[in-house]
């Protein structure tokens, strides 16, 4: 058991524990903060895989952007100290059975797949290789999706503003 395996188990345990706490807690703000720690744990797993750029992206966009957005929406709609109502028993049963079903499907796929252990060098995850591939206009380049992404972001921006301005006007 090398040090990196131990650290991997610890970080994965953190991700799962905080995810579970985020789902089961009844105070809404605490749920957002537990989700934050869970996402930071996932960034830690990316660092363990030597994918530094993706880890920083995870922190910048997921934690620094989406969690902040969620927290702002909590501020706008909830009172400090409000507790969410206790879930009904049949909902707990339905949720647990769906989760168990999902787990069985995923585990089945894992055990059926023959994972190949290889000693080849992994793909280069650095920002430089990501940039080169992203701007490459040849057959295996990604410049076309890159430009489409700008339109996707524009559509998201326009959509959000239309909805929010309508709420403001009311």
């Amino acid at each position: 058991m090398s040090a990196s395996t131990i650290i991997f188990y610890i970080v994965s345990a953190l991700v799962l524990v905080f995810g579970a706490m985020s789902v089961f807690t009844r105070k809404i703000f605490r749920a957002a903060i537990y989700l934050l720690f869970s996402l930071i744990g996932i960034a830690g797993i990316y660092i363990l895989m030597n994918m530094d750029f993706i880890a920083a992206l995870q922190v910048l966009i997921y934690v620094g952007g989406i969690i902040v957005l969620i927290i702002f929406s909590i501020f706008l709609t909830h009172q400090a100290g409000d507790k969410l109502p206790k879930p009904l028993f049949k909902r707990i049963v339905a949720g647990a059975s769906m989760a168990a079903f999902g787990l069985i499907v995923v585990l089945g796929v894992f055990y059926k797949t023959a994972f190949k252990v290889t000693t080849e060098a992994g793909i280069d995850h650095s920002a430089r290789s990501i940039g080169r591939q992203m701007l490459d206009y040849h057959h295996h380049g990604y410049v076309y999706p890159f430009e489409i992404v700008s339109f996707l972001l524009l559509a998201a921006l326009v959509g959000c503003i239309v909805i929010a301005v309508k709420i403001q006007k009311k």
Partner: protein
Amino acid sequence: MQLSISLLEITRAIDSWLNSIFHPHVAFGIELVLAGVAVILLVVAMAVLMVYAERKLAGFMQMRLGPMRVGKYGSMQAIADVMKLLLKECLVPTNSDKMMFKLAPFVVTVVSFMTIVPIAFARGIQLWDINIGVFYITAVSSLSVIGILMAGWSSNNKYSLLGAMRSGAQIVSYELSGGLALIVVVMMSGTLSISGIVQAQADGWWVIKGHIPVIIAFVTFIITSTAELNRAPFDLAEAESELTAGYHTEYSGMQFAMFFLSEYTNMFVLSMVAATVFLGGWMPFHIAGLEGFNHFMDYIPGIVWFFGKTFFILFLIVWFRWTFPRLRIDQLLKLEWKYLLPVSIINVLFAAFIALMGWYL
């Protein structure tokens, strides 16, 4: 670069000495402990220095002497402040979310410490030369909003919550222009790692080499850093005459000291980043052609250059505080979204054009 003693040689000597006495893993553990202690001492020393310097500079700019009684010329003032905060009771409001309330100072302190990882103090003196250096600092700085929102929510005080929301909106808006200012230099250097950016300035600092777009980026970055730190003239959310103290109204004693310390640490780190990216880090000031001058400049150690540049930018930020009147929240957000962000975006395209044409020095 011939220097009489190099900090890198000292650290390498310590490393080989430790490895000769202990087992390599134990030596590594001891080095980690030494590095941690060094970082904590740096942060504490910097906080003490900044508190004293700010009050003295504020005094001189307002034609008065500042602290003079505690110690010679008031130098022990920061120690007296720390003693006072230690002895105050750490109150926790009754109806607050106690766990989040107590957690918020820890979150802000940990985030401030985490930004110190990639900073290069001298040639080779870096905790970890991540290959995404500048991007790492931007990403971790964006975590500081969370601590502020946590503090504002868990205080159960309408003014704290309002202050936290305004602070949050302000910090989050100014992060955009800051990122764009850094992208200009990243594009000119062709690398994200801090040591790569410093190495690319071996023949001149970027503010001088990359003339107009980099100067615009530098000014934008200083304005943005001041706003991200919630410092005047952008400190509406925590000014005393406004929302009492904004998101840290309900904090007292050492918990308040942690918010205070993290603000100064962030100020220090952002100054170090500005000094590294725009002013050349630990590279001395060379003028092409004057060999004697360059030789003399080389004798001053890299760490002296680095801290000199950092203190210059810290002085600028302190100077802003005591010169400009405070901006209202709507003026502040208008400055960013209407003026700074479009200027930053066009500056990036302009800098790209100049880099393409090769019109930089």
